[in-house]
């Protein structure tokens, strides 16, 4: 009886440890995202200081640049995030085919986002919003604008490549209802990119 109690206590302790344990891959991803938080915060602070010190320049840009394209792009990214979690839901329901389909939507929306960002950059360059201080017509707005948005765009491109890799792995049966941490880790990255855009959209285009 004593042996049985000890065995039971040990088993309960194991279960408690398991419940409190964290997934190493997810933890690593969160640590990586923490480093990204610092980088993007620096970009945002630089922009906010510019916005505070030179409000007229920013207002001038807002008057010249419409919101239609960037709002559409914002919806694309929000939709891609939704597609991502819907894909996760499918693998949780043991449906790898559904996961691949939803991730396909995510990747396509990501590609369109980057494509439209390129279109936008072309339009802005025609409005004399450039990286060069000598050619920029808005007192250095271009540097403060392109640095965070281009850095974000690069993240989207990396995310699309990663998404395709997750789809490839899913097609090979690497994920299941009990093993989908790889999908979730990619999801963390993609949603983080979405969160960054939510903040950039408001701060740069609306405020």
């Amino acid at each position, binding site marked *: 009886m004593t042996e049985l109690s000890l065995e039971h206590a040990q088993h309960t302790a194991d279960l408690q440890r398991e419940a409190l344990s964290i997934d190493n891959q997810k933890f690593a991803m969160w640590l990586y995202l923490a480093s990204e938080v610092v980088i993007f915060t620096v970009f945002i602070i630089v922009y906010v200081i510019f916005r505070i010190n030179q409000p007229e320049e920013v207002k001038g840009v807002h008057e010249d640049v419409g919101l239609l394209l960037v709002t559409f792009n914002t919806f694309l990214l929000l939709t891609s995030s939704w597609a991502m979690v819907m894909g996760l839901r499918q693998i*949780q329901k043991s449906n790898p085919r559904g996961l691949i389909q939803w991730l396909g939507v995510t990747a396509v929306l990501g590609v369109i986002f980057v494509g439209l960002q390129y279109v936008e950059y072309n339009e802005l360059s025609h409005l004399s919003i450039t990286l060069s201080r000598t050619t920029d017509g808005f007192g250095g707005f271009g540097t403060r604008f392109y640095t965070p948005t281009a850095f974000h765009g690069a993240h989207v491109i990396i995310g699309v490549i990663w998404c395709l890799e997750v789809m490839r792995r899913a097609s090979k049966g690497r994920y299941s209802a009990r093993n989908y941490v790889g999908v979730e880790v990619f999801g963390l990255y993609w949603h983080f990119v979405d969160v960054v855009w939510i903040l950039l959209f408001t701060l740069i285009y*609306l405020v």
Partner: protein
Amino acid sequence: MADENKTPQELTDAEIEAVAHSVPKADEYPKGQGEELAKELTSDSTGLEEAAVAGLQKTEELSEKAIPKAWDAGISGIQDAIESFGTKPQTPHEALASEHHGDTTVLFGKEYPVPLYTAVFGALAALTLLEVLIAEIITSDVKIPFLIGIAVAKALLVVLFYMHLRDDNRIFALVLAVPLGIATLSALFLLAVPTTGY
């Protein structure tokens, strides 16, 4: 027939086969032969063996009584409980999948037939439209706190529901909060720097 003085290692293959064929199969034993064999065995057993057999018989008799039966039931119950623990418990992902990220959305205690992820997406879309409307309608800087408030709410929706921070281990929230807190404090400190010289 094999030589009985030989050890098993010394037997040839043919002798082993002959021994195997000489042994009757289980159903070939005449009825009652097993009991007779048992009697023979017990007849030349020692006193210790007899005591053991008697002890086992007594235990069997006692096991039919109420108290040992209750004891057995208790042990079985504990064993069942342990085995139920043994089945893999829900991982945080599975708990998430079954409880919070189901196919319905519970809002203010009422259940709606819309997947939670879709409901969050609807909220994000509505808030984005609201932001754009505020930015287009209000031209003064009064709009700024509203816009920032909405943006933070949208970011929180994504982080809490899509990135599962609402249900995941608190350490993830800490990992996010520490750099965010330090960066925010640094920004506030930086904003305190005068922009013009005296």
